[in-house]
């Protein structure tokens, strides 16, 4: 348990507190969680901003993410290189967006990214099919999956291009009051 002075400088903590939805204590707690994922890789002293990234396999091993069917996509959406290697800043960013206090628009943007498997900024039918298979764990038959995807796109697509753009997605999310409470991971 280090004194907070040795992990982050005060300015860094202030910056974290202003730019995320976490308080200082929570940032320090997050750092200790990040550290215990790979104690030999992650330095304790972050005052000179070391360039340390943890691979995807370590991050999805966290108990909060381990059983989540979207864990790979979640981590990939927050990584700069798109491969799932998270630095500490991206780690904090991820949990900040997934925290209780993040506003709906921000969560909707990242939810869109998570569900967009082929990263083309549209939720096409293949994206939906993959999402559905992850959700239901292969319990629906392929015909049912296809039917659900078609109907879902039909319902949500506003401009008629058979894909869900971000505006369509956001419009659909605004009708779902439960989105804020379900798109939330406690850390």
């Amino acid at each position, binding site marked *: 348990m280090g004194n907070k002075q040795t992990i982050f400088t005060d300015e860094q903590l202030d910056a974290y507190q202003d730019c*995320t939805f976490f308080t200082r204590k929570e940032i320090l707690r997050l750092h200790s969680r990040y550290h215990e994922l790979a104690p030999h890789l992650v330095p304790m002293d972050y005052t000179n901003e070391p360039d340390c990234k943890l691979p995807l396999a370590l991050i999805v091993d966290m108990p909060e993410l381990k059983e989540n069917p979207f864990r790979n996509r979640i981590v990939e959406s927050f990584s700069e290189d798109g491969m799932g290697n998270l630095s500490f800043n991206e780690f904090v960013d991820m949990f*900040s967006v997934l925290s209780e206090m993040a506003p709906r628009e921000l969560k909707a*943007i990242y939810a869109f990214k998570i569900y967009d498997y082929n990263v083309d900024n549209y939720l096409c039918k293949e994206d939906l099919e993959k999402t559905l298979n992850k959700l239901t764990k292969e319990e629906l038959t392929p015909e049912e999956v296809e039917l659900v995807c078609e109907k879902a796109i039909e*319902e949500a697509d506003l*401009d008629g291009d058979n894909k869900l753009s971000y505006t369509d997605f956001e419009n659909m999310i605004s*009708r779902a009051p439960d989105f804020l409470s379900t798109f939330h991971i406690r850390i």
Partner: protein
Amino acid sequence: MANGGSVSVDICEEDYDYQNLGESGPSRGSFQLFKEPACNGQGNPEDIQMEMFTKNSDTSDSESTSSSSSKESSNGYQVRSLQRNNWSSATRKMLSSMPSRKTGLHSSTGMAVRARQTCALPKHQTSSRDSLHIPRATQADITSPEFEEISTEDEANNLAGSGLWCAETNKEQLVSDLRGLSESEGMRKLRAMPLSLADKMEIRKHCFSPLAKNSVINRNVPCHNLPCMYLSRMWRHCRYTPRFSTSLKLWNSSMKKLSGRYGTGVLSYFTFLRTLLFINLLFFIITFLFLVLPQAIHPPPDSHRTSFSWIELLTGIGYLSQSLMFYGYYSNITIKATSITSMVPYCIPTAYVFTTTISFFTICIILVYSMSKSFGKSFQVFKSDGNLSENVFCSWDFKVTKKPSIRLQSEKISTQLKEQLSELTSGEEERTLMQRFRNFLVHVAAWFICLASIFFSALGVYLLSKKAISKMHQNLDLLFMAAVVSGFNLLLPGIFNFCAWIEKHNSPSTRVYVSIFRNLLLKISIIGVLCYHWLGKIAVEQDPQVSKCWENFVGQELYRLLLMDFIFTVLYTFLGEFVWRIFSQKILRKNRKPVFDIARNVLELVYGQTLTWLGVLFAPLLPAVQIAKLFVLFYMKKNSLLLNCQASKKPWRATRMTTVFIALLFFPSFLGAAVFVAYTVWIIKPSSECGPFRNLTNMLESVKLWADRMKDYHQILSWLIQAYNAFTDNPLFLFLPSGVFLLVIYFRIQVVDGQRRIIRRLEKQIDDEGKDKKFLITQLQYLYEENNPNSSHRHRGR
């Protein structure tokens, strides 16, 4: 590049102004934003299109991989021409410059997203400028994915350049945007931007303190001594955790464990429990500080204590009835002993009335506020018929972490989706007349059973309460009525469940609402009967055989009811869940654990809270009892849940149900208790031998007497009292504000209605635009293919 650079500046600024969707056609500047590198400085979009028409340019290959549905028309040509890969570059250019594609661009979030995606960290700029190959993922833009197909390899560099440049100016625009706002607003906006954390920190550095590196508030602190700094930091901490619930760290880890296993529905029950705990705490603090403490410090002269026995803890008579717990102990003295109170004497009866009234008022405000907030969250301006897509994207609960619960959740979602699919595909079942009639009969029978059982239980309680008066001083007999009431509360919901099972409602939410309504009716009727009995009979008759002090009697009854309710809950949790689980596992050999019934448990909580609110006038320490009860209940329910129950398979709309629960807490429970208290304070004559209001016609009179006495003491007080009298005596003061409020409410309802109409119209407009676009695309394609019948389909080799 300088020339292009300067043009880009104008373009970006023009872009930013290009907010209005209704602007006719793509403006020249915005078109050039995307087209300049590829078209090498060509001007008019119309020129480009004409050029494309006349000369050969690439078209994409005809093999279509898209899976667009043919719902629009059966015309094969139209279908083929709508397939994205078949479009000519002219079509694509036109599409990418359409206003609808640009809407996401011009909100600040859109800009920020673009800024992020064109990767504009200063230290990365040089490296990406050098690289020729830009990965698809980072280059893809929300608004024009087809654009990347047009640009060539060496033009990609230019794009990177201009894209990065544009991202720079975007960033500058973000910074200037934020600088214009106040600090807290700007901070909030910064946090809500979808940029990476490093970008946000940079913007923050540029925006808020170009020189200082400290946090925003510290910069403003003029004093440099330590306590000041700590205070300001604490203040900033308080400001940045504005939500009441997050700063309450009580039970956070247990709730995380529970939500990990059981999901958001069960979590809402425990959150509700925690809210109730804090409401009671507030009530208790106000009452304790202003009423109990002064009376405890100055005990009344005529108190005598009898001996104490443990059974009295349950029944509330004897020792407890002459303690601070109940009304009878409080005296009508005016404390003048201490130095402060010799200036303004502390009058206990007035304090009694005021603390109760003010606590009720505070809680009313808190409840209305939280109810309106939660209603606002779950309010839908649109009619929800988009349930399927909502279920696909919004129903997965990210909080659930345990493997078996995840499996259950998947099953739940699949079942839900299958049900919805079958509903959509098969439509309404055509039921024959006989079936419908039989359904109707079943419904009538079920309602008849429920209402009859409620009526008989209310009657039973009424007769019992009349009979119980005669056997007043036997200990266990007193408990008998409370036990009967709790017994009814426990058994009758079983009957209601049976009725719901034979009724077989179509949708699960109807079933939940019907069962809540029946339970509510049961509790309201029982409490209503008891209140009538207390206020209508006992208080009015004031039979000395019953009790010398009827308020004590009523307070004790409520205390007993509360305790019995708690004991029965403990018994039910133990027998109903623990023993049943062991029984079904060992003897019946089934692996199904019982399911936690959220609605019923929440109604139990609301019932307990109603009893507390009813009783606080007669037993000022009752909130403390309720706090202890809620505390124990939390741990008991949590452990029982973890040991015995499994997650439910039925879907549970947590947000809507939370609204319903808070509304239930406010409307029958709190308002009923408030009416009860108001009636008692205003109309009922207090007993003449005990309590702070002896020898007065009603409790409110003590306030009037106090006000008369106070007029002589202090100038401001007398002025206040005169103002109050003028206010209440003149009925105009009541009518005018209510009239104004009603007008405001009516106006806002009309505004919401109007907005709903506008939204409908806009939706229809979007729909029509989509159809128009499809038509135009097919026409364009048709014209293009007519003009170039020999165009070869080359592969897109990018």
